[in-house]
Every structure is written in C-alpha cells, then in structure tokens.
C-alpha cells in the first residue's frame, strides 16, 4: 500500500525567531509575499533552489526547514 508523503515546514517558527514578516522574507529570497504565504500553508512546494535560499536566510539546514513525513 502506498503512503502519501507530507511535506511540512517550520518557516513560520523561523520567521518568528528572527522577527521577520512574510514581506521581508519574500524580499530576501526574491519572491512575492503571496509565494511565502502559500509555502507556509503547505499549498505550494518550493523548488530546491528556493528552499535552499530560504534555509540560508534562517541559517538552518534545509532538512530542518522542510520536513518530509511518511
């Protein structure tokens, strides 16, 4: 039986830790605020490039920012 993998993220937590708004984070990685919002809500899965950029902004590994749950 195939289980559907779920990708969760800790972007909201990391943003709160660094006191960043969605807009400010969007500007740092070169996307719109709407894109950050949809990633946070799990509606959009970012590309590897964008995921790495986000992880770099927060200074954490990508695996800590995006968690794949079975």
């Amino acid at each position, binding site marked *: 039986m195939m289980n559907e993998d779920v990708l969760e993220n800790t972007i909201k937590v990391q943003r709160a830790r660094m006191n960043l708004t969605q*807009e*400010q984070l*969007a*500007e740092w990685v*070169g*996307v*719109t*605020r*709407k*894109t950050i*919002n*949809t*990633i946070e809500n799990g509606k*959009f899965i*970012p*590309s590897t490039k*964008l995921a790495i950029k986000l992880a770099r902004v927060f200074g954490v590994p990508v695996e800590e920012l995006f968690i794949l749950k079975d």
Partner: protein
Amino acid sequence: MSNICYIIEGAKHLVSEIEQLDMKRRKIMIGSLIGFTAWQLPLLFQYFNFNPIVSGWSSMISAIGCFVWLYYNVRLVQFSRLLRKKRELAGPLNDEYIQAIRIKSFTAAFWVLLACIVTLFVLSLFVDLKAQFTLHILIIVGVTAALVSYLIFDKE
C-alpha cells in the same frame, strides 16, 4: 549604522511596491475579464435575437465592454513597460509560484475548451450549428477559461 537603516528602509519600500504591483496586476486581469465578457456575450446573444430594440441594447453593452477591455489592455501594456524599466521588480513578480499558476491555469483552460468542443460536437449531431457561432463560442471560452482559472488559482 545610518547606511544600514537606509538600506532597510529602501528594502521596505521595494517590498511594498511589489505587493502593490501584484494587486494592480490582479485588478487589470479582473477588469480585462469583465470587459471581454461584456463585449463578447451580447454579440453571442445576437445570433438568437431578432428583436431590433434588444439588439440595440446588446450592441451598446458590447461596445462599452469593448472599450473597457481596450482600456485594461492599455494598462497591461503600461504595466509591462514599467516592469521592463524596473527590472528589480520583474523577478519577484514572475517567481516560480506565478509560473506554476500560469501553467496550471493554461492546463485547466485546455480541459475546459476540450469539454466545450466535445459538447458542441455532440450538439451538432442534433442541431444545425453555424460555423461562425461555434468558433465564436470557442474563442470566448478559451480566453475566459484561462483568465478565470488564473484568478482562482492566484487567490490566497
């Protein structure tokens, strides 16, 4: 220290400008959709209507719709020119999420158009459909389906 504050203030302004332009683009698309629909639907209606008074009113609504559509197309061209001048805004406004939505909306529009073609084909087996009427419907469905699906997918 003052340089850092200046950079942060500049970044805040840029971010707000991106947000405003994103909303502006959405408004232009909604306006264009309304204009196009108002322009084309009365014209479609005239294939079935033979009352000159009703025909006159529908022509007027269609003409207004045409002007609205043209107005928003001009605004869209101005928007594109603005992005060409301010290249730092073009990137975020065409990020991977927008590109994904664009592909999704074209895909949705394709299936809607295909469903419309199949429906018209089946209908043609029972009713004599004029070629002009059929092609007109397909143009309207093709354009509106793409715009509507984009606006739906783009909504937060």
